[in-house]
């Protein structure tokens, strides 16, 4: 009886050991289903899903990626997912938030895997684009789009005013840009003979304030991510350029911009002759769909050269990031990399150097702009985003840019010093 009991006990122990080992092995098994969160909705979501389906097919059952669409309140919902410990494995993150999420430990430091990759390496990217995915010199995301600023202009309005086109290869200064805009600002008549004001350019909070600060050779935050350069002489010079534009009367008064809906509509309706927009903006398609008599010819020029001799083109980028819980998973990184590579064939423009021709496959109507787009991509620049960026940027909008738009004589020097002091306080409190 005793023997039987001891045999039975032994069998139970053996079973427990087997189950324990199996359990441990199971725990070590790599994840094979991943969730990808995106803000894409509607048509963009359909296109996104086609890419994910393709990646899933090519995975041959080794893994599967599921789409998590968050079309509204994306960052609020994303934060809630993370707080609930249900962080999506991959997700899109705008450049302004990379440093914040990195600081809070929500996204993985992918530096080593990125550098050692045989497929996609940092060297392949435009440096100004890739910079947006870094924090404290480490990589936290794979940018999947480059969208630097370019100057779109209305050739017909230039011809009507007898103003020569800006150089497609660039090299024009901000002073030349302002003079050109002045020549294009005039009272004209519509087809019914009614007079209306045509403007050379439009500013209404867009382009963002970095564009002007960089034009003066200044910056908001230094490369080290700590020093505040807002009250530097170069930054003040840049803001001086913005004030000069606002005082010159070459842009519609701020209070009037909303009357047409948004700033780009002013360009589409030929109320302004020049517009600084991302290379992705599809004016070509929009104009081609207008009635014949409302269509116009579009020209392209790189951004004007600033006081530091560079034609900085503010670049908006989003990255694919990896949840920090998968920081050590090479397999997950590879999946993210594979999907990101597919995005390059989808969006304008690929953030990889030497791929500008891909634009023609996605948007053939951009062909006349290709050479200028290449210049803008080479000059693409991201700000030095820090975890406190949203707060600093909010102050810059509320107390500086908005105030300048409402009052072209606004004393920006005093205000920018106060904002710089607040930015220093915020950065000093960083954990």
């Amino acid at each position: 009886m005793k023997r039987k009991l001891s045999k039975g006990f032994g069998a139970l122990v053996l079973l427990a050991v087997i189950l324990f080992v199996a359990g441990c092995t199971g725990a070590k098994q790599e994840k094979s289903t991943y969730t990808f969160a995106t803000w894409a909705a509607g048509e963009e979501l359909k296109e996104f899903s086609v890419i994910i389906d393709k990646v899933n097919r090519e995975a041959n059952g080794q893994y599967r990626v599921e789409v998590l669409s968050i079309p509204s309140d994306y960052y609020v919902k994303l934060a809630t997912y993370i707080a609930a410990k249900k962080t999506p494995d991959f997700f899109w993150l705008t450049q302004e938030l990379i440093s914040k999420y990195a600081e809070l430990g929500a996204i993985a430091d992918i530096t080593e895997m990125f550098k050692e990759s045989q497929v996609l390496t940092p060297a392949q990217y435009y440096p100004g684009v890739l910079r947006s995915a870094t924090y404290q010199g480490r990589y936290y995301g794979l940018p999947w789009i480059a969208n630097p600023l370019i100057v779109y202009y209305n050739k017909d309005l230039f011809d009507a005013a007898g103003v020569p086109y800006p150089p497609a290869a660039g090299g024009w200064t901000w002073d030349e840009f302002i003079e050109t805009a002045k020549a294009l600002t005039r009272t004209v008549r519509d087809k019914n003979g009614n007079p209306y004001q045509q403007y050379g350019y439009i500013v209404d909070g867009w382009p963002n304030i970095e564009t002007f600060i960089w034009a003066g050779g200044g910056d908001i935050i230094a490369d080290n991510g700590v020093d505040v350069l807002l009250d530097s002489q170069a930054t003040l010079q840049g803001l001086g350029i913005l004030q000069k534009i606002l005082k010159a009367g070459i842009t519609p008064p701020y209070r009037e911009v909303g009357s047409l809906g948004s700033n780009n509509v002013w360009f589409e309706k030929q109320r302004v002759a020049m517009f600084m927009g991302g290379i992705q903006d599809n004016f070509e398609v929009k104009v081609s769909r207008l009635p014949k008599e409302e269509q116009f010819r579009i020209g392209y020029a790189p951004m004007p050269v600033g006081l530091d001799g560079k034609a900085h083109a503010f670049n908006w980028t989003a990255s694919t990031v990896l949840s920090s819980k998968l920081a050590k998973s090479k397999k997950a990184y590879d999946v993210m990399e594979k999907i990101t590579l597919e995005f390059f064939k989808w969006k304008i423009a690929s953030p990889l150097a030497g791929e500008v021709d891909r634009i023609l496959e996605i948007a053939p109507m951009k062909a006349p702009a290709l050479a200028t787009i290449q210049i803008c991509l080479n000059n693409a620049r991201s700000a030095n985003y820090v975890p406190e960026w949203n707060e600093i940027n909010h102050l810059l909008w509320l107390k500086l840019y908005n105030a300048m738009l409402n009052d072209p004589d606004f004393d920006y020097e005093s205000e920018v010093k106060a904002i710089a002091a607040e930015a220093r306080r915020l950065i000093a409190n960083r954990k």
Partner: protein
Amino acid sequence: MKKSRVGFLFILPWVLGFVIFTVFPIIAALYIAMTDWSIIGRASFVGLQNFRDIFADPAFYKALTVTGRYAILAIPLTIITALLVALSVNNDYKGIGIFRTVFYMPSIVSGVAVAVVFKWILDPTYGVLNSILRLFGVQGPDWLYDPAWVLPSYLIMAVWGASGGLYTYLAALKDIPKELYEVATIDGAGWAQKIRYITLPLLTPILFYNLVMGLISAFRKFTDAYILGGAGEEGVFYMVYLYRQAFSFYKMGYATALAWILFVIILVLTLIVNYTKKYWVYSERK
């Protein structure tokens, strides 16, 4: 099973819901207000530091001023407007129901839709309001684009949507015994005297109710302010300021502390209003 136990079982789902979805979040919010928490990362206990930071932040006082100023003007304006509308539709003329419906409609429109519509109405160049003013040779202001006109813009919106309390006033008006008016007529009272000595005193309970609700609603103003904003900091109402701290700046502990301060402000103001009740609100129990 005892009858009382059966009763408790019947109310158990409600009690559980109350504990899980009300009591627990209140306790959690109290704790979160005393932490440095960004939603995404871990929370660390900081005691009363968030409250100290808030009281040292000029933006807090600015948001409080914007909201307080709005509340002081919007509450009486909306109460008077709704009361006047109620008095004007408190009769049984043929087709009066249509007018009541029309007046009540603004209060059932979503806040987002109202904000979008008012964005166009208040547009300085092509907006309806300035176009009407132009007909009279008046150059309208820049409304939301001019710091001095941001508050009046929001007051116009508040008055437009004031009829939310219309039906409470109408119900109260219908409750006033007709005999009182008949007696007053026999005594030679005119329209104004009837309003002054009969209608208004008997409406004070509902005025009190709408005053408290208006107070809460004014301090919690968010949707249209979030969408429309306003020149400079003039459109930054308290709730907009709180929302930004939580979801733009990822300072959930700080934002929760702000929510507690708002709760205390509303509570104190409500208690003050409640204290004054005995001086001006009619009660049959007197």
